[in-house]
């Protein structure tokens, strides 16, 4: 499936405390939690984002806490995929586990500006910056992780493993 949307651009070290501040972690309702996505560094983000848009950032996206609420609110506010030069490891795992597509491409991350129109093909990792008429390829997933994403996340993947184990 080809994803189309606009880029919301951030710099390096966007941490989970700004993606979803810890002071809201007592909120269990995802709709309500999502209202606070990125509010400490970009108060307009939630009102500006349209379903299918992309977050594009440079290095170490999602550093900090292990809170899974971070990829959850990004996904829930309609972001189709996060593209970054690099991801913090726990965020990357969490995103794969919950089914938020994440693509790693330094070239795409650096060339993209806020508001650029992007098209992304998740299966091939192709990222087209329509505004700038440029094409990039994201780093392919290791086979093992591809399998998790193909199954629709870690829960589905594990369910299948558990079924296979049963006599």
């Amino acid at each position, binding site marked *: 499936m080809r994803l189309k949307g606009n880029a919301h651009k951030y710099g390096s070290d966007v941490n989970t*405390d700004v993606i979803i*501040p810890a002071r809201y*972690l*007592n909120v269990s309702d995802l709709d309500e939690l999502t209202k606070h996505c990125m509010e400490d560094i970009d108060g307009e983000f939630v009102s500006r984002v349209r379903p299918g848009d992309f977050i594009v950032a440079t290095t170490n996206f999602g*550093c900090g806490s*292990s809170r899974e609420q971070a990829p959850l609110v990004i996904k829930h506010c309609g972001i189709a995929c996060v593209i970054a030069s690099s991801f913090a490891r*726990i965020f990357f795992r969490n995103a794969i*586990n919950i089914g938020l597509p994440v693509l790693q491409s330094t070239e795409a991350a650096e060339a993209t500006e806020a508001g650029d129109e992007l098209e992304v093909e998740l299966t091939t990792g192709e990222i087209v910056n329509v505004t700038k008429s440029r094409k990039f390829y994201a780093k392919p997933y290791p086979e093992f992780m591809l399998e998790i994403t193909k199954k629709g996340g870690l829960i589905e993947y594990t369910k299948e493993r558990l079924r296979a184990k049963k006599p």
Partner: protein
Amino acid sequence: MTLAEKILAAHSGRRKVNPGEFLNVEVDLILANDVMTPLAVKGLQRLGVGKLFEPKKVVIVPDHFCPNKDIRSAEAAKLTRQFAKEQGLVYFEVGRMGIEHVLLPEQGLALPGQVIVGADSHTCTYGALGAFATGMGSTDIAVAMATGEIWMKVPPTIKFVYHGKLPEWVGGKDLILYAIGGIGVDGALYSVMEFAGEAIAELTMDGRFTMANMAVEAGAKAGIFSVDDKTKEYVATHGNESYSTYQPDGNAEYANVIEYDVSEIEPQVAFPYLPSNVKSVSQAGEVKLDQVVIGGCTNGRLDDLRVAARLLQGKQIHSETRCIIIPGSQQVYLEALREGLIETFIEAGAAVSTPTCGPCCGGHMGVLAAGERCLSTTNRNFVGRMGSPQSEVYLASPAVAAASAILGRIASPEEVI
């Protein structure tokens, strides 16, 4: 193999593992708290798993927003408590709980040679004991709770060797901040930080916990120390469980080896808004403080409180600064009380609280207003970490924190002695 590779090999039935390999790893201990357990419970429901693989290997500690800070936190804590009871998990109630990463080693639950996963990024703290310990999200933790296994990619190891003799007032916090300042907040991304050298051998266990705790602030999957006599003595004092120890091979392959001479290191301060934004305390300049926090999973242990008390003894907290001191566990609190440290703190004009993560993540017990500045012994100083996005957090050791609380500005311990 490196220390981390040895532990991962032993837990995945392999004789040898290499960085980049994907493994199914058996876990020895699983941890979750009051803010991450509710999501893990949802994950377990989706998995359709009613009973956990081994309930006594799962530890639940309500420490983040507990004692309950508001109705919503109370609901989350209630759900967490019910889950722990229904499943027969190891659970520490308010009054017995501590900050998870202070509590688990103290209770003899985290041990050398184990693989430990927790739904908290600072799970890496247990690397101080020679365990492979790493933080994950709630879904990963739900799968570990259900199956006793988790997938891992074998990380490369970077070795950090600290030579020389530690100057006075320089400890584990300064060594780890100095390293993060050098390599950056993604300097050890996806890697293991293995700590070694004669200065590390001299460091107390509490100092090692502080260092391992902040490995994640350099992007690391784990921070790890070899087991020595100090580790063995610590474990013997805190329980009688048997455990396995591993040592890195002499020909282990490291992605990088970084060496320091600690005799040249001063107390360090991380300025807003990254733990890597580090300066020596003598270069800090005039930074006035509204609040000082001593505690957290980084520096809420007995050694930390002793250092703070040494400086606060007979002194007064600055009239325009609030000082909040939080022992990391009931045991730490009790021992600090018996040693007279709590009396010293209260006489100096500090507030002393029951154990909680509270202020570190802007939860409660010391949230900052816009424009306020706090120096804290915790591990993160991101925008809005301790409250208003217009507030500032500076990270430092308990020694710098105590000196700064007395002078009402960032200060070196030397200035108050």
